[in-house]
């Protein structure tokens, strides 16, 4: 189905056509939000808010990105502002610690470390978790990741590198039995 035609129809007043987008992208958007907001009820509410906000601003959808990317960006912002209201604090790591890229690469490639990494991922900030998921799980192109998260496209790779380093440092500190 041609989504741009559907959007034109919605703008013409055929509002029921919006249901197609909810049906098609609801689960995917919900997964994105659930990674940030662990409470499923809250996540569901936020997805609904995102789709309502999307509907109210559908006139501003210019087609520069796909509808899926556009609505994901709205949902991401809804989730982030929800988390800001909750004032949750996350683990901070001194990222100035000198580490070579080779050391990080070794840990990230070692399948025996997957479980440790999974626990370390849990301690990342939500925006960092989302970046990892969009890149490694959804296999999204850098420009779409940048669009959804609001990061400059050139900075996505840098951010990913910093997150990998942070994960490495979390694992190392755990290995050494130090308190983070």
């Amino acid at each position, binding site marked *: 189905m041609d989504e741009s035609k559907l959007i034109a129809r919605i703008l013409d007043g055929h509002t029921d056509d919006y249901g197609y987008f909810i049906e098609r992208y609801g689960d995917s958007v919900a997964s994105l939000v659930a990674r940030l907001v662990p409470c499923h009820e809250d996540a569901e509410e936020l997805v609904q808010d995102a789709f309502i906000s999307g509907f109210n601003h559908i006139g501003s959808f210019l087609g520069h990105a796909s509808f899926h990317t556009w609505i994901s960006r709205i949902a991401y912002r809804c989730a982030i502002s929800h988390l800001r209201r909750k004032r949750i604090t996350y683990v901070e790591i001194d990222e100035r610690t000198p580490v070579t890229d080779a050391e990080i690469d070794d840990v990230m490639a070692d399948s025996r470390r*997957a479980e440790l990494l999974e626990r370390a991922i849990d301690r990342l900030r939500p925006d960092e978790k989302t970046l990892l998921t969009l890149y490694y799980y959804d296999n999204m192109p850098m420009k779409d990741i940048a669009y959804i998260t609001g990061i400059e496209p050139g900075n996505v790779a840098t951010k990913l590198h910093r997150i990998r380093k942070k994960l490495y440092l979390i694992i190392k500190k755990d290995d050494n039995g130090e308190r983070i």
Partner: protein
Amino acid sequence: MENGYNKDNALRQAVNNATEANKVKLPSNFAFTTMRRIEAERCRTARRNRIAAIVSLAAMCSGGITTLVYLCADAIISNIKTMSHDDAHFACVVPMVICLSFFAVLNTILRKRMNG
């Protein structure tokens, strides 16, 4: 992949596990409830706009009438007095009332047609 993190097998596996564990399946009536909320919100916005329009129109009308009365009250009263004493002047009030009634009826009919 657009950069060199293709070899991050462990990280990829960890991200997959973490994501799968948090995967959400929306209830089957999610689209329906969302559309219902959208519709309710649209109605609320329309009602709010209508109330805002009525309030601003009323404010403008009352403002205009107040200004008119404040500036030309004496002239209006003297004219009405003249009209009520003079048959020739009073005669023009009847066609004016007929005209206004005609426009009021026309307005009602057209409104019904447009909305229907």
